[in-house]
């Protein structure tokens, strides 16, 4: 046989076995689509992050400067590519408003800030000019129009005498809508004044330079993250600025200097699994085709075909199908994310916390760069490799076929010669007989289908655990509202804001709590565990930062908390009574534990601040845990805490449970109460849910997309299994019908087989999927991936999977048996003869 004869033969085989050709084609096409789709999405995600990072601003670091010499040295530094200085002129005094006046100066061109693009007017030049958001002006009681007047009270440098000045509005920044829904104290309001005003204060000595210099260094394109941060730090050192006075825009730097290793490795991981499953699917199609073609292969060998020619015959078939399926898959795989991404962006935009963010998302739509030649080539190579590897074993089998054996061939039932069988035959007997005939194939089929569904369940387990409510519950663990005390621990300038001083004011007195309980609709008010400030004279890194003593909160846990603490135990053990008796302490934060190089057995000579009183206490660290709820870094038992005889009221947080119907009115009342106390912050469940949703949606949509893709693979596998199992038994089914099997019985028999496959698949995927899913969840939780905190059983996803499998296999069975019925019985019996 000449080579072109082999080619012609391969072509005619493809035409003859249409359903097989179509199946293989679909499998290759879908796999290519998935690979290309996932890869393209990865590229798009990288580009989106890049653009998103650039959109807000393009600075590398912020330097906090205190002298004009530093400012001058920095602006002339050789490494600085571009720079802008924002001088923090004054703090606005206006009730609870968290506002400040700054002066923006462009020192070296090349920086941009999205929040500084003027919507109207110009930046302030004259001494009385001011520009800000329209919402800012409304908030301070002025009409946001150019030329409008606004009177502001402020303290220069945030201290000293209160000053009042009338300004003229010269510019308006684009409005943000965030203001209406989020509590005032949680937003920083800024307004810009002119350099000339600043200078006038500077000359009189009333203003001391307090400036944030935003800058870019040279080499963003060539340097990696470490190199560029080293360069920034070196620049700071050159102008005599300590490292603690610089803040890196880590997200921007990561995005711009990272070649996307993390995203790409996730993409590669998913692609690997996709390849694995589709190789199995393609392999099983060819495996079955060798078995059904064995007589034909034998005849070809009898006619003189060499082993190489047989191998080439299969390779040609694979290549010819690939020649159509791969390019089609590449096209669809590219255009699927191309058209889907805008939808995802819109969805992200909808859930975004503020309108500015949603604006970025909308702006990005259509601008994302998705095409990558290396990706295209990789996918082509990966697919050719997949087809090649799935052909290897079937080809080896085909090569081994001996001409004599082949012509006599009957399907292999293994070494089995006898079958116990049944005295009477029913349709179910037929179903079971077929499944047990080739146990290995049945098991392999159930396993491959099961495994792809395991992926589905596994992913849903993690996905169903990313809940906005869990994120919201971190800020409001109980009830619907939380009133929190705003406190500092280490504020030297304003020591009155430190916890030990605030607790002396007894904010959460019984009278105050009664006042809250009396609000109509409030069902219950409860105190969270109290907290006090602590410090240590020991040499532990926990209580020291760069040689300076720092203060941390200190609290307790109750016997009710034991479950949460023990189930998340990492090192040591928690024995409540022993801990009380031996004055033992528990660390509740793994990261800090490792960062400060703590060890079990460490002792801390502590000073606890009971208001103005200092209480000494030496404790020994005996366990590390990472509980779901929020605790102080170090906690002792409640009994030990009570034995300390503290006199202050240590409550820092209270939770309110309210009736659903009264939610809005309670919120309003609480907001008014909280507004009277500058140290209170109100957290409400609806706002926290919004924040939670916005961070969940970042993960949710891409993950759902992947989940759907995984479901498609599983389903493809199911379709293939059903079709091959029926099509390859066409003749046998024909014989059964010739001896009297009715169409209804045929459908019953095939559905029975399908049901067993489905049941097996479900069993494997539910058991394995949930175990693996839970492990994956634990891992994700430990590494703080996707902000998971609580495990949710993927019940709906499991039910969906079961329904899809059941309905899917029934539809396929019906469809194929109807198709078979159209072919005459005689043709089927003669099939392959």
């Amino acid at each position, binding site marked *: 046989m000449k080579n072109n004869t082999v080619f012609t033969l391969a072509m005619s085989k493809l035409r003859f076995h249409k359903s097989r050709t179509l199946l293989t084609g679909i499998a290759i096409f879908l796999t290519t689509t998935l690979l290309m789709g996932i890869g393209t999405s990865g590229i798009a995600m990288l580009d989106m992050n890049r653009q998103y990072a650039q959109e807000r601003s393009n600075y590398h670091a912020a330097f906090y400067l205190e002298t004009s010499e530093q400012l001058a040295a920095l602006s002339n530094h050789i490494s600085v590519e571009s720079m802008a200085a924002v001088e923090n002129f004054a703090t606005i005094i206006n009730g609870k408003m968290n506002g400040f006046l700054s002066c923006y100066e462009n020192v070296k061109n090349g920086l941009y800030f999205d929040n500084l693009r003027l919507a109207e007017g110009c930046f302030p030049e004259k001494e009385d000019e001011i520009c800000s958001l329209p919402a800012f002006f409304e908030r301070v009681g002025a009409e946001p129009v150019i030329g409008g007047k606004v009177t502001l009270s402020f303290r220069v440098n945030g201290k000293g005498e209160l000053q009042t000045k009338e300004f003229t509005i010269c510019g308006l920044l684009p409005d943000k809508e965030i203001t209406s829904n989020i509590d005032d104290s949680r937003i920083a309001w800024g307004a810009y004044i002119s350099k000339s005003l600043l200078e006038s204060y500077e000359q009189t000595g009333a203003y001391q330079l307090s400036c944030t210099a935003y800058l870019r260094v040279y080499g963003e394109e060539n340097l990696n993250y470490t190199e560029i941060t080293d360069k920034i730090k070196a620049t700071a050192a050159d102008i005599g600025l300590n490292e603690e006075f610089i803040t890196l825009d880590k997200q921007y730097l990561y995005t711009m200097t990272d070649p996307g290793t993390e995203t790409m490795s996730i993409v590669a991981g998913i692609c690997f699994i996709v390849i694995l499953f589709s190789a199995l699917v393609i392999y099983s199609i060819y495996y079955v085709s060798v078995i059904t073609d064995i007589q034909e292969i034998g005849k070809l060998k009898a006619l003189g075909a060499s082993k190489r020619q047989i191998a080439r015959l299969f390779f040609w078939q694979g290549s010819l199908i690939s020649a159509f399926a791969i390019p089609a898959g590449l096209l669809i795989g590219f255009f699927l994310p191309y058209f889907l991404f805008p939808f995802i962006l819109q969805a992200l935009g909808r859930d975004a916390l503020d309108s500015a963010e949603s604006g970025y998302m909308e702006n990005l739509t259509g601008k994302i760069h998705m095409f990558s030649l290396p990706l295209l080539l990789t996918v082509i190579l990966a697919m050719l490799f997949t087809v090649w590897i799935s052909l290897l074993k079937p080809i080896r089998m085909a090569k081994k076929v001996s001409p004599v054996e082949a012509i006599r061939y009957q399907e292999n039932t293994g070494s*089995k010669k*006898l079958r116990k069988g049944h005295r*009477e*035959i029913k349709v179910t007997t*037929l179903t079971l007989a077929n499944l047990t005939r080739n146990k290995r194939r049945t098991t392999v089929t159930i396993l491959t289908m099961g495994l792809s569904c395991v992926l589905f369940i596994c992913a849903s387990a993690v996905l169903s655990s990313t809940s906005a409510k869990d994120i919201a519950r971190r800020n409001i663990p109980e009830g619907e509202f939380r009133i929190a005390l705003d406190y500092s621990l280490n504020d030297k300038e304003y020591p009155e804001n430190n916890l030990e001083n605030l607790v002396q004011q007894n904010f959460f007195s019984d009278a105050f709590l009664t006042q809250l309980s009396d609000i109509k609709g409030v069902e219950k008010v409860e105190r969270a565990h109290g907290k006090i400030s602590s410090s240590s004279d020991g040499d532990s890194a926990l209580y020291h930062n760069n040689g300076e003593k720092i203060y941390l909160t200190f609290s307790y846990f109750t016997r009710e908390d034991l479950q949460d603490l023990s189930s998340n135990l990492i090192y040591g053990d928690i024995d409540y009574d022993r801990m009380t008796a031996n004055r033992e302490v528990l660390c509740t934060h793994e990261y800090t534990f490792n960062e400060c190089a703590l060890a079990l057995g460490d002792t801390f000579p502590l000073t606890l601040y009971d208001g103005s009183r200092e209480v000494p206490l030496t404790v020994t660290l005996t366990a590390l845990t990472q509980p779901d709820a929020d605790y102080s870094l170090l906690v002792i038992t409640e009994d030990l805490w009570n034995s300390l005889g503290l006199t202050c009221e240590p409550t820092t947080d209270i939770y309110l449970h309210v009736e659903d119907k009264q939610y809005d009115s309670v919120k309003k009342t609480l907001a008014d109460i909280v507004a009277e106390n500058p140290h209170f912050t109100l957290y409400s469940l609806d706002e926290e849910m919004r924040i939670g949703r916005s961070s969940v949606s970042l993960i949710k949509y891409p993950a759902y997309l992947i989940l759907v893709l995984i479901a498609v693979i599983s389903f493809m596998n199911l379709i293939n299994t059903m079709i091959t199992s029926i099509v390859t038994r066409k003749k046998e089914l024909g014989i059964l019908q010739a*001896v*009297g099997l009715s*169409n209804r*019985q045929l459908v019953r028999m095939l559905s029975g087989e399908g049901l067993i496959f489905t049941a097996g698949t479900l069993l494997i995927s539910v058991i394995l999927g949930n175990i693996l899913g839970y492990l994956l969840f634990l891992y994700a939780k430990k590494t703080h991936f996707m902000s998971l905190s609580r495990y949710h059983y993927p019940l709906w996803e499991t039910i969906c999977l079961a329904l899809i499998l059941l309905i899917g296999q029934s539809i396929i069975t019906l469809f194929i048996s109807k198709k078979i019925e159209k072919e005459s019985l005689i043709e089927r019996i003669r099939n392959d003869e």
Partner: protein
Amino acid sequence: MENFKDIILKTENLCKFYGAEDNLVKAVDHINLQIKQGEFVTIIGKSGSGKSTLLHMLGALDNPTSGKVWINGENIASFKEDKLSQIRRRKIGFIFQAFNLIPSLNVWENIVLPLGLDGKPLDESFINDIVETLGLTEKTKNLPNTLSGGQQQRCAIARAIASKPSIILADEPTGNLDTKTGNEVMSLLKTSAKKYGQTLIVITHNEEIAQMADRTIMLADGKIISVEKGDTLNNEK
């Protein structure tokens, strides 16, 4: 031969055509045939003469292009698929050249298959009798691929007889067997048919077998060209 009373199988202008116009193939061309209960008929003819097509239509496996088939006085042309499968498992036993046993079932299960599909209670002594007659007693638990060709065909015969059909149709039942085994199988088939009072229609190329029959019908180009031995049929060329 004088005992033939009832007509069990009858065709009227039975046709099966494939293709159209220039490519029209008349596989079976206006055949009129009557076969009586208990009769043993052989059909002979060259390859492509329409023997198998005729047999398939007689056995309700294939639909005629035109014409009618009566089985036990019932015209099966109007029957739906479910009713046809019922006819196949109750009235007809089919034996194929390629045996066509179900590979996943053992010999016993293959034999009782048509009964099981009909939901009929199993008459074990009757089946045991067939198994014994056909010499398969030792092989009932064997899977088909462990049997010799002769044994497989005997199993197929047992399957055809098991549901006590009134008609047994055999398409070259000895075609895949050596002469000795072929003769053995044929005489077993004939004996069983006689024992259970069944009508036997056999396609064969084998002269010897044709000689055994009550009547031999010769086909060419889809038409009956001669009928030997018997004198009771209407033969329209």
